[in-house]
């Protein structure tokens, strides 16, 4: 009976088309942070591995607080007009940093995108790129993809649903991330729509096929800062790895950062409003949380005041789109910038906001099927991400060189190098940056 219902073509497997090229960028008729020129810039970095610009030209297109922050040096450079300045042939600037016993060649963290939200190949590409470039990749909440597990430079996430976690998995990475919140949905648990929960995801996450995987909003064993301390210590003891705590940027971020530092974590990942997500209720995504630039500035200020800043790492995430964004966040107090969406764009994302439906035209967030028509080329995707990091780092070096700094470490907390243009008095005070009135 069962056999007669199986049509022959289901078993017939055709070779899927290997995706090695970018799709055209669709025209948009509503507001978007990831504008065409931002996507083009990332594609340039990802295909060439070479810098495209020093100062981020795309920032004039959007109105983030970060877009209205300038390095004073850029304004000086602009006043040079056509005479401009020469890009030196050789730049001796260091972008490597060390935290919690981890050495990073570039101050970049590849942010926490789960297996399930992404369709497998992108997860592996990101983890391999982290190995190749000496950065660190967060694996997200969905358990460990077997191929990702073979990479060394990964951070294993311990989130509220504990999908697919055991001691062995926790010890696989170089760090453990306790995920409390994420920028796209602070106070809400992870959400993988049932349509994307196929057999392999079901096995990795240890959940039933076809059912929405909605993680609890809170960790049911972390209801206070004291609870958090117990978990941090237990995870350190069990794994011997540094522990990072990932939170969303919210009202009390300075106090949360201070609590996280005091409770013995090695660092905090702060994820700002507007950050990417595979699925979130739009009402929460659009109305909860604060921008990363304000959160980093406020958290850094509080940690310094409480003398907790030394030896503690701040990783800034959420709409980090260019080396200049990363540099400005560093000047506001971050150590490392996290890139998630930018890495997806490097792998071909065209920002159509349909990840939750499972029909990603760039085959990055599509539903995993047994017989796919096309799949992302792992080699190409890995190369794109490696190049992105190379080009990004080159642009960062150019910025540091313009600023007259020898290393990225020297940039941290240098708010004096920044100026706010047309920002409100309240924003300037939080940022600790002087302001000038808006440009006409």
């Amino acid at each position, binding site marked *: 009976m069962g056999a007669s219902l199986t049509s022959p073509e289901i078993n017939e497997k055709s070779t899927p088309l290997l995706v090695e090229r970018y799709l055209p960028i669709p025209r948009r008729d509503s507001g978007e942070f990831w504008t065409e020129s931002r996507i083009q810039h990332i594609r340039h970095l990802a295909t060439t591995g070479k810098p495209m610009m020093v100062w981020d030209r795309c920032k004039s297109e959007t109105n*983030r607080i970060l877009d209205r922050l300038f390095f004073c040096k850029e304004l000086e450079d602009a006043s040079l007009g056509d005479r401009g300045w020469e890009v030196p042939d050789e730049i001796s600037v260091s972008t490597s940093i060390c935290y919690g016993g981890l050495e990073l060649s570039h101050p970049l963290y590849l942010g926490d995108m789960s297996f399930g939200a992404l369709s497998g190949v992108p997860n592996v590409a990101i983890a391999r790129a982290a190995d190749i470039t000496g950065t660190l990749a967060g694996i997200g909440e969905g358990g460990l993809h077997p191929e990702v597990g073979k990479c060394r430079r990964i951070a294993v996430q311990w989130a509220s649903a504990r999908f697919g976690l055991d001691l062995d998995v926790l010890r696989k990475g170089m760090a453990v991330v306790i995920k409390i919140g994420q920028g796209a949905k602070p*106070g809400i648990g992870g959400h993988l729509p049932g349509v994307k929960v196929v057999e392999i995801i079901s096995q990795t996450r240890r959940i039933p096929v076809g059912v929405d995987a909605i993680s609890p909003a809170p960790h049911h064993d972390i209801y206070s800062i004291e609870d958090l301390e117990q978990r941090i210590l237990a995870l350190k003891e069990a794994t011997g790895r540094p522990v990072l705590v990932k939170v969303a940027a919210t009202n009390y971020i300075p106090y949360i950062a201070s609590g996280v530092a005091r409770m013995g974590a090695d660092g905090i990942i702060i994820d700002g409003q507007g950050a990417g*997500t595979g699925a979130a209720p739009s009402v929460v995504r659009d109305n909860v949380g604060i921008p990363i630039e304000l959160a980093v500035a406020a958290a850094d200020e509080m940690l310094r005041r409480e003398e907790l800043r030394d030896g503690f790492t701040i990783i800034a995430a959420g709409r980090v789109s260019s080396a200049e964004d990363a540099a400005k966040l560093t000047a506001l107090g971050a150590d490392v910038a996290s890139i998630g969406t930018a890495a997806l764009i490097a792998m071909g994302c065209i920002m159509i*906001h349909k990840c939750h439906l499972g029909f990603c035209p760039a085959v990055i967030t599509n539903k995993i099927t047994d017989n796919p028509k096309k799949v992302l080329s792992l080699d190409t995707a890995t190369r794109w991400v490696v190049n992105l990091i190379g080009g990004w780092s080159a642009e960062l070096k150019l910025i540091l060189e313009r600023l007259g700094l020898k290393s990225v470490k020297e940039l941290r907390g240098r708010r004096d190098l920044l100026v706010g243009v047309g920002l409100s008095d309240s924003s300037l005070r939080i940022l600790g940056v002087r302001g000038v009135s808006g440009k006409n």
Partner: protein
Amino acid sequence: MSIWRRDIVSNLRLLAGVEGKTAGEPPIASMGATNPPLIEEPMFILDHIVSDGAQVTRPSIDPYREPIETEVYLFGGKLRFTMPIIIGGLTGVYPQHIDAVILAGFRLGVGVHLEKLLRLQLGTEVRGHVLLEVSEDGLQSPQNGPLVLRIEGVGELARVRRVLKSLAHSTQLVARIPSTANSLFYQEIVKSGFQTVIIDEDLGGVEPLEVSLSEADHMLKRLTINGFPARYLMGLIAASNRIRSSSDIFKLGGLGADACIIREAWRIGVDYKPEMPAHLLSERIENLLIGMQREIKLLMGAAGVSSYQSSIVGSRELFRAIDLPYHVCEKLGVKPAGE
């Protein structure tokens, strides 16, 4: 630019079941937000306000698995609405549809504001959920539900007070006023015996709704009647055509509104057409209201709050303002983000 951005309209229609297949469910989105004030152009103070997500130092509440109460009470607990939403803007709605709207609201325990004097055959219980607008003469006949009196300026209140004193019956009295932050106006309204104020931006006024509402809430908390803050006895309702979504309602709640009257929003959400069958209209209104209530629950859960009226209404500490000048933040009593 229209205040009805495409994403706002689409969200309402997904909730109402005009679009999509998940009526009544909060719409899911993916990748980064594009909301104002940082990406889309901000049009109102509300667009600068964000809500809190509880983390670490305070747990969030899981709205899918734990109870969250959205009910609000007016008239000292005598009138209960299941959610902080009141349907208004029935002017222009076809007479054969008004009953459908009122009944849809009643079935869900949601109030309806009727601006026009209409001769309706409403059952006692249903009437109790309708905020019925009357003229001063209309006050004379006893009613088994709240009565709304429109008051344009503080100068009218001396006369109104005389009329109210002469009433032979007691009734639930609501004043509907323009958007004003004039504290004398509110004091006089309290003294006149009103138990609820509708601050209605569509009646005009000099201040934005956010500012009037917040100042009224602050003022009524300072003013005491028989030793109690007047705010305990006095309901505050915000009304405007530009209240677009559950998040607008939620933020106005934070600034002091016990409930909000939505007008254009529900008509757009249900894709109102004069020729639509009444049963379709009620179905869509019910979907929309249930959906908006669920969205409010998501926002409450994220903020770690389980009771709307006791923990959201007037609870400015749960909110922050993004890139709003200090003097506006101070007027609202909302801190800038990062503070």
